[in-house]
């Protein structure tokens, strides 16, 4: 498996650390009820199809990436930086081919 890091280009998956679904990006308010925290921390979909999950380019640039991929076909449709980049750099880089 290979991911195209928006900063570094196409790289082997061994350079990346896998975290989980992108639900982790949507942190509840500090005073949110326990159910909201429960959803945030524990409840995940397990789709056969498109999924957006978080990878960390640990052996590379240190960027956290949101990867849109298909769990059935293994197609990777987009790899984006989690950090909102400055406008000039803000673009979703399609995985090659």
């Amino acid at each position: 498996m290979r991911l195209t890091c928006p900063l570094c280009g196409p790289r082997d998956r061994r350079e990346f650390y896998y975290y989980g679904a992108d639900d982790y990006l949507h942190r509840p308010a500090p005073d949110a009820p326990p159910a909201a925290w429960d959803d945030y921390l524990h409840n995940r979909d397990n789709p056969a199809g498109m999924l957006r999950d978080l990878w960390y380019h640990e052996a590379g640039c240190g960027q956290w990436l949101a990867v849109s991929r298909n769990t059935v076909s293994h197609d990777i449709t987009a790899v984006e930086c989690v950090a909102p980049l400055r406008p000039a750099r803000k673009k979703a880089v399609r995985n090659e081919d």
Partner: protein
Amino acid sequence: MRIEGRGLVDRGQTLGFRFDGRDYVGHPGDTLASALLANGVRLIGRSFKYHRPRGVLTAGAEEPNALVEILEEGQHTPNVRATVQELYQGLAARSQNRFPSLGFDLLAVNDLAAPFLSVGFYYKTFMWPRHFWEGLYEPLIRRAAGLGTLSKRHDEADYEKAFAFCDLLVIGAGPAGLAAALEAGRAGADVILCDEDARMGGRLLSETLTLDDAPAVDWVMAALAELAALPNVRLMPRTTVTGAYDQGTFGALERVGLHLHLPARPHLPRECFWRIVARRAILAAGALERPIAFQNNDRPGIMLASAVRSYLNRYGVTPGRRVTVFANNDEARRTAHDLMAAGVPVAAIIDSRPHSSAVEDCPVYTGAAVIDSRGRRGLSQITVRHGGGISMIETDCLAVSGGWNPTLHLTSHMGGRPLWNEALAGFVPAPNAVPGLAPAGAAAGVMSTAGCLASGQRAAREVLEALGRKAPGLPLPAAEDAPYVIEPLWSVPGTGGRWARAWLDFANDVTVKDVGLAARENFASVEHMKRYTTQGMAPDQGKNSNVAALAVLADATGRTIAETGTTTFRPPYTPVSIAAIGAGGRGAGFAPQRLLTSHQASVERGAPMIEAGLWYRPSYFPRPGEATWRDACDREVRMVRGAVGVCDVSTLGKIDIQGADAARFLDLVYANTFSTLPVGRVRYGLMLREDGHVMDDGTTARLGEAHYLTTTTTAAAGQVMRHLDFVHQAFCADWDLRFISVTESWAQIAVAGPKARALLASVLDTMPDLPFMGCAGVGVQGVKGRLFRISFSGELGYEIAVPARYGEALFRDLLARAETMGGGAYGMEALNVLRIEKGLLTHAEIHGRVTAFDVGMERMLGAKDCIGKGPSRRPGLLGPDREQMVGLRPLDPEQALSSGAHLFVPGETVERVNDQGYTTSACWSPTLNSWLALGFLKDGRARHGQTLRLVDHLRGIDVLCEVCDPVFHDREGGKLRA
């Protein structure tokens, strides 16, 4: 037997080799199989289950029968296919699966009992009595089963792994692959051409075909010479592409040194496992000929028709003196033509097709079939049923062809299902089965030479177009373009009887009968049949038998082949040694080693180094007269408490954080507050995970208004960096903030004990007057360093940091000075005792399931928000039901405690329901002359003074303890502030 004037082997040179203790001679260019056949050796192994005599069936990687052990100095490699093993001087091999010898094998008795050993025999027979399984049946079956033996020694040989990248990977160097590589290579694309054979050319090396009216081999040589001259083309012979993976990644195994008598250079690897990343790939892997099942079709001397041509045309060997051909297609007749042209008598051609041509220079039986064979250790006679009745034909070699199966395995590796093609009577690759991989030539079902050349070139042009390159449009040589004419024939009905068996899977001894029985017992799905009969599960993975077996299954279940479907091909295409996949990972290569700058200094003092994550740290520093590690550890603890100790703590993670929002960021990621920390001061911090449990702890120093230095524990340094990056990028990327790991930039050495200040004053240019938890920049003999007054021991303590290149010198200097003051170095064991005495945390305590409340630090969480704050207050994470951190002291101080022990109320039974908690750390404290433990106890903070029973069944410990505060030593902290 060699045929003069034939073949591509170098007859000018001879290579001596041994097989089963006898000496033979072959030539460079031979495989072990061709050399054995040249020497008239037909019996090469015994079959898996019935121990039937077996010879060579094929001339390639799909060989199911001729599996041998290659013997080397102190080692041997089992299940080597003799058809792939190149001959070298001194090669020694032996046959497998026979006892006591190949010619006389005791377990051949299995063959006589065959009617009772049908498929499912094990499942049905060894059911009862039930307790016989473990003691009797299983050991017996294990001894009888299996192919080959292991040396049971470590494989000390060298292996390698490597990565490669290209525009186009061409898999297979036959006519299609060569045409593709030429077209793409001339266009300037980066091309890798892999072929599993030692010599590239594919079938062109084994046929008497012409290209542009010259021998095909001439064209192959010219093409290879041209490719070799192109700087953008890499030729990789002896390299089997074994698997297709996501995003254009392919696995490939190169046989680097397996064909050499002596390695060409020291440490030449035996094999290299490649990961090849290709923008596009062309599968030009050709096709594999398949046998026809008939009664006793497994005798040595019965071979594939294409293999007979390979041995004749490529190796100059005839596998028989009087050959017969049995086929259902036109192509196999080339075998008869080539043999006759070479002067080898052909006894007959038996063509199963009633309307095929009978015009040949030898007898032809059309609409006929071979129904039986004879010959105990090799073929001597076949029985043919034809229009005129039944005839016996004396023959020592039968060339069989049931047609060809495209080598489409790689197209199945990502879930693609092959499609049945009626005209070819075979499966062809599904379109776009692997993104970016295009089948060409015979692998795509194109069977003529001209068709293969054109197909390869066409595939390359499509790739070039996708890559935006101009195709040169090379002229292709003129070649045969005969249509492939075949009428399916899978199995021939035999003469009947209990012993009448026709083999499908030679390697696993699966017969037509077995597949029929599986169908009758309702293992009718192809996947069930495979698992019940083990068809396709041998080293050849069904390359010779899959299609025929499912054709037989389709027939038995009244379905078409297309309806029956195929089993799934998975990587690897051919066996890959674990040693190659794991190359470099043996011993110290298993994980990277991180060494302290003081490593050598510690080793010189005899310190045993122990692993801490990837780091190696000194365990203790033994001195003469100390019998055990405990002696050294106790001394080191007393030394720190009484004088001064020096310990390299550079393994702690160090993160340099700068920016106007650095303070705000630390307030977010730590439970406690750092924005209020004055410049020049240090504060302990507790970091929570998002779920409210403790992730890590450490100290953070404020070096400037917008400059912090955070330390993490050794174990969690990577995790914390990942976490900080996540919080920053996901939640506050717009803050004015940057941070970087500086763990390896700084060497940091702890100096602890009552004489710590005096020791440091002797090395520092100026000793600053730091309060407890203060920090300052210092000069260390002219080098800019940092001094922190922090303590992990409970004594007056400092940590001094210098750029890593000065670490070793500073360590040695401090150590030498300390020793003049009654101090010295201390290791991990003493460090641990010191911190247990002081009740300080390590990851033994913050093991992932404890909260700030559990460790008594919930008051650190102030009014501000922080990561983990909300979830840390969820129901169940607070209150008396929680196991809280406590100290434990045995009532009898000499009684040993252990970590991992469980706590019980005296008088209650020792069982799970009465469990009150557990210990996480334990040590002998030379300071307090008592065993001590830290642990977690239900409602523990309210239970100080209670007596509990500490039980460790594993170590046989059962001790009464008193619960106490976790800080055993200097609770008031007077020593820290001295």
